């Protein structure tokens, strides 16, 4: 199963035979006061800086979210998307809880974006799937429905079936659906990591869709978060995710190592290249 996402000049293929695709998570004001303040003022300079630094860190796709209090996303999200498109040539993942804001951003996008996200909730399926279809996008499905997020893998699998069915009957190809199994913090619930790994395996085996994962939440409320995030992404890759939503600079080395170990980095080209870059950081940065 291969999912293609594109900007005007670049295409990223997500799938088993390819390196794990990394979606940069940092253009998102959740939990980031400075970015929240800037977005409230309509100031997109930080967005631009995050776009550049994540591209430089090796992101394949950039998530763009401007959702915070006091922001009119219908107005600001397309502006942010436009600015990021002008700044870097990476494909984008358009991220909003509001279908109207998604649509406004889809209108200005050029290429085939990812939409983040649809859930198994009726209101979401009914409003987001037609947008994905109309604009020829791919979509991230979250394993959540009107009952909430189930704490076991069987029910998460059942929600995935529902999302895939509904998307297909809305005319969206299965290859354009990426499922995010949703990670809870292990600090609060010790079983949340193993549930995700288990769910990834089950969905992969039954439905064959590509899987993404917002991985950073796993370490919430714990010290040395980057260590946990790195261990988790490696395990998720081994279990079958083909795409990750992460702080790219933080976990990329672990992702490259995991890809190499899982046979997704032929002759270790990417792993060794990253190693060389780390050896000569100054020259590379010039």
């Amino acid at each position, binding site marked *: 199963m291969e999912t293609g996402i594109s900007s005007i000049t670049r295409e990223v293929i997500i799938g088993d035979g390819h390196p794990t695709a990394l979606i940069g998570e940092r253009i998102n004001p959740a939990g980031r006061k400075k970015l929240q303040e800037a977005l409230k003022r309509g100031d997109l300079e930080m967005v631009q800086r995050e776009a550049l630094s994540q591209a430089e860190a090796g992101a394949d796709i950039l998530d763009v979210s401007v959702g915070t209090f006091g922001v009119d996303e219908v107005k600001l999200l397309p502006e942010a998307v436009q600015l990021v498109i002008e700044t870097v040539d990476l494909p984008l993942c358009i991220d909003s809880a509001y279908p109207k804001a998604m649509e406004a951003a889809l209108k200005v996008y050029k290429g085939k974006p990812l939409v983040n996200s649809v859930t198994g909730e009726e209101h979401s399926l009914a409003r987001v799937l037609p947008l994905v279809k109309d604009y020829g996008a791919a979509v991230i499905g979250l394993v959540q429905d009107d009952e909430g*997020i189930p704490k076991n893998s069987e029910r998460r699998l059942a929600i995935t079936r529902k999302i895939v069915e509904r998307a297909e009957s809305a005319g969206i190809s299965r290859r354009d659906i990426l499922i995010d199994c949703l990670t809870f913090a292990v600090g609060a619930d010790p079983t949340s990591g193993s549930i995700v790994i288990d769910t990834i395996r089950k969905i992969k085996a039954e439905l064959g869709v590509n899987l993404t994962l917002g991985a950073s939440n796993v370490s919430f*409320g714990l010290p040395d978060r980057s260590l946990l995030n790195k261990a988790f992404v490696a395990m998720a890759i081994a279990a079958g995710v083909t795409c990750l939503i992460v702080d790219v600079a933080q976990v990329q080395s672990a992702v490259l190592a995991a890809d190499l170990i899982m046979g997704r980095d032929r002759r270790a080209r990417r792993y060794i290249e990253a190693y060389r870059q780390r050896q000569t950081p100054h020259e590379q940065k010039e």
Partner: protein
Amino acid sequence: MAKDLVNTLADLKEKEALGMVQDRLSAGEDPLRILDDARRGVEIVGKRFSDEEYFIPDLVYSGEILKQITDMVKPKLTKAAEVKRLGKVVVGTVAGDIHDIGKDIVVFMLDVTGFEVFDLGIDVPVQKFVDKIKETGSGVVGLSGFLTLAFQSMKDTVGAIEKAGLRNQVKIMIGGGQMDEQVRSFAGADAYGKDAMDAVKLAKGWIRG
């Protein structure tokens, strides 16, 4: 001696703390005093958590130890000696939002510091808040949320409380990932708390009134 249990629990030494409780019960000490020490120990845990010296699993662990102590002490408590509660608080994550970690921590700390807490859970419809306030006569309400969707839900919840004629009877505090003073003002709540210790401080201030 009394101080020992407080600090032993605060340092999360489960075996030692439980041993001390057993010894003190065997010596015939007032079970309420033991419980009070245990609570003070967990309050220190909460303080260390808010100072980022402790982490979420430390907090959960202290709750488990406290639960064991409560279970040991309970049979010795006479009805008359039931713990006196400071006041009643209704807490929930507002409609459309399902984040529970912060809310659970607030519930835990309010409970430990002596409040009677009614935890409505997550994705709580506005009417459920209204009904619970009526039913319990609570004087404090805590609204939790993380998503951008929660801003409007908080405003709706405050509005529903007002419409039900209960607004003068309760103080409303909000908290959660993206909440701040601006959201408080938008929602029409009385205060914003940045963490669970803040929530306890606010509730204490209001209930002592």
